[in-house]
């Protein structure tokens, strides 16, 4: 099987039903995509397929046809506007959910460069942060959207 992941063609032999998340984490070592719930309930595993946010824990590898982007490939230098605003506002606490939060927010801003407050909340309500960084996640998205 082959997939384009972070602009590289990758080949692998796995169970076609294996969720993309486990391919990324266990087979390819791309552990920035986190295992949170395995049911598409928390968003920690969010990646992009052709630019759209997808929960990789419930996406079988065999169903993926587009280009996959993970947090490791979001920007070449780690300075996507959201990554920058995340750091400027000291968003994370434990940090575990944050790659998924950033990937979800990046897909939102790619589709809607100036989202309303309500649009941000709606887009991000599928991503859980147990440390409770929502206030800063929201502010960081607003900040990045204003910079754009």
């Amino acid at each position, binding site marked *: 099987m082959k997939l384009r*992941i*972070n*602009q*590289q063609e*990758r080949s692998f032999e*796995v*169970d076609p039903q*294996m*969720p993309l998340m*486990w391919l990324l*984490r*266990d*087979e*390819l*070592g*791309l*552990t*920035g*995509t*986190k*295992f*949170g*719930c*395995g*049911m598409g*309930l*928390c968003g*920690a595993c969010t990646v992009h397929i052709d630019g759209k946010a997808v929960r990789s824990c419930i996406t079988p590898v065999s169903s993926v046809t587009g280009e996959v982007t*993970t*947090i*490791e*490939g*979001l920007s*070449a230098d*780690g300075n996507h506007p959201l*990554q920058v605003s995340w*750091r400027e506002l*000291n968003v*994370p*606490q*434990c*940090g*575990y*959910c*944050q*790659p998924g939060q950033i990937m979800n927010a990046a897909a939102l801003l790619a589709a809607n460069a100036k989202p309303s407050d309500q649009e941000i*909340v709606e887009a*991000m*309500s599928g*991503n*859980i*942060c*147990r*440390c*409770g*960084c*929502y*206030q*800063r996640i*929201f502010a960081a998205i607003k900040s990045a959207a204003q910079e754009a």
Partner: protein
Amino acid sequence: MATTDPHRQTVISNLSRRKVLKGIVSTGGLVLAARVMPRGAQAGIVEAYATGAGAMSGGTVWNPQVFVSIAPDGTVTIVAHRSEMGTGVRTSLPLLIAEEMDADWSRVKIVQAPGDEKTYGNQDNDGSRSVRHFIQPMRACGAAARQMLEQAAATRWGVATAECQASNHTIVHRPSGRSLGFGELAALAAKLPVPAEDTLRLKDPSGFRYIGKGTVPMTDLHDITVGKAIYAQDVRLPGMRYAVIARPPVLLGKAVSWNADAALKVPGVLKILSIASTPMPAKYAPLGGIAVIATSTWAATKGREALGVVWDDGENKSYDSDAYATELAVRARAPGKIERDEGDIDHALANAAKVIEREYCIPHGHHASMEAPAAVARISNGKAEVWACAQSPAGARADIAATLGLEETDVTLNVTLLGGSFGRKSQCDFALEAAVISREMGGTAVKVVWTREDDIRHGFYHAISYQHVTAGIDATGKVIAWRQRSVAPSFMANFMPDPGRQSAGELGMGLTDLAFDVPNLRLETGEAKAHVRLGWFRSVNNIPHAFATQSMVAEVAAELGRDPKDFLLELIGRPRVVDPRKSVSSEFVNYDDPWEGHVIDTARLRGVVELAAAKAGWGRTLPPGHGLGIAVQRSFGSYVASVVEVAVDAKGELSVPRVDTAIDCGFFINPERIRSQIEGAAVMGLTVAKHSNIRFKDGRVQQSNFHDYPVLRMGEGAMDVRTHIVPHGVDKASGGVGEPGLPPFAPALANAVFAATGKRIRNLPIGAQLKG
């Protein structure tokens, strides 16, 4: 492009002793053999005030030879010995050392200590203790390193040490203006003795560059944002196998039969192993069950599904938490064991003009950190190496050694980042599982992966509890009697034959430390046996105790037609020290700190109430459906009051537009992380108040994932949390910050709901109680 080589990835830089001696000394760095200096509780140069740190296992160590190394290029490497789970401690404690050294933070590297309390001092990251117990030793450590560098410079120049002073990563000879960099002095400084404690000179706070400023970001901030921060779930070793375990759904249940053949038919499944359980008190021993080891987590999970385990549920199969709550209520209505007694409660209640009785119930809860537990173990040549998201890494190391029959020195416990913990990962059952499985696999590296379902169904649960409170009021409207009965099982049942009621330590969290100015006071406990593994959930027994006391204050105020904030201040009374030691029936546990320097100070309690109220605009006009509530709690050496604004719409949907929280945590290091913790505590507090409910039926946890054990999501409120920090001088004992933000939230919210709707919430979670 990011690397995709699976073997290039490493855990956060871990400092094994071997690496230190090989790696840093050979480059001429400042590292010598460790010298352990456990601290007593006496005050001195290093400790301006006494703490309980010396009584913890390993005590404290302030030796710079243990914590600091300096490379010839000037890079200062500082050991972080406490576990990072989101509080920022991996930054804050090293920052203290850098501050006292006058090091340039941009030239400081952090390495994580493995679990080793003999070398580094205590590593039990429970009880919000990291800063409150280590602020003084870490400052002393930095000061000692600085003085060694100053002495080295003086020797090099042949001048008096007093003329040499550290300044921004250099030592300056003041009379001549000459300077040498830290790196140039490292080799010489490394040969000098560590200064005696009574010769240490701590920085004057006016010269602080970092402490109190909030300008230094978390060490791991960049890595987190680019996906390179490594948690235990992310650890990968060459040839590593993956294990998931079918654990007994009922505590101490046993697997009767399972279909190993079916599981082994799943491609990638390598082996099926039976894991033993341990009868209670089992401490952190594995729950037992059937492990499936495979070439990937996915294969292991599929193999587990194929096992079809049949369980003998055993003696705990009748546990039903709803029925149990009813039992607790019955106990709470009858006289219990007196834990603290002042005045004559029976006489006062019999003669009160008005008696008000209320009951409050909080169910079991669970931590549900975003990273479910995980650990990797590899055993070879009689030595075990483990990577774990351990909240108590030295404890985990000791337990692994005991489980495998090894010496502790043969076990290396590498600490990864913790993807949240909130108390759960203090219990190292997951690391013990990895160790046992690796041993059974002939030492192969094995990662035990807990799924979300495993996490929620096999936790160490926050205890279900019932509180019965009776207040007696005299004819003038003054509270003259307060009787509170607290009934909850004890987490001590994990460690000893079930005591059947809360221990002194659990009671010190919000019951026996009650600081109300009421002449007749009785605090009691009722019997409650544990039927599940109990643990400590962020702020622990403070949650039910504060919910009951702070709700009750507002209930009595409402009955008397008084303003809840004014009434709360009246109950707290005049500024004074409340000393429960005089009236407790057994021991009073003061968050593991001595009494002196850590007293219950009602001036500080009043202070945060008044500050939160003032900042929140207490009494301001609110839109229809909105209400303000207030609550306060002292915990872990800190005083926190919250004013919660709630909005309840016509459908009974609740939101929290604004929270104002005042915290008095004594002297503090990083106000930015304090704000972060307080913001997070409001979110977690709202989760506890609104959603958290672990229920047992037939001994089994009924919840399994975030659909039936919801935690707060963006948009549910607590998005405008304003933190107001009380400033203090360096001599005011630092209090905890990780936990104390949580206890006042739920009662402040319930009080706000009452103000908004007239409905009183006495049972958590709120769930659908405001609907219909």
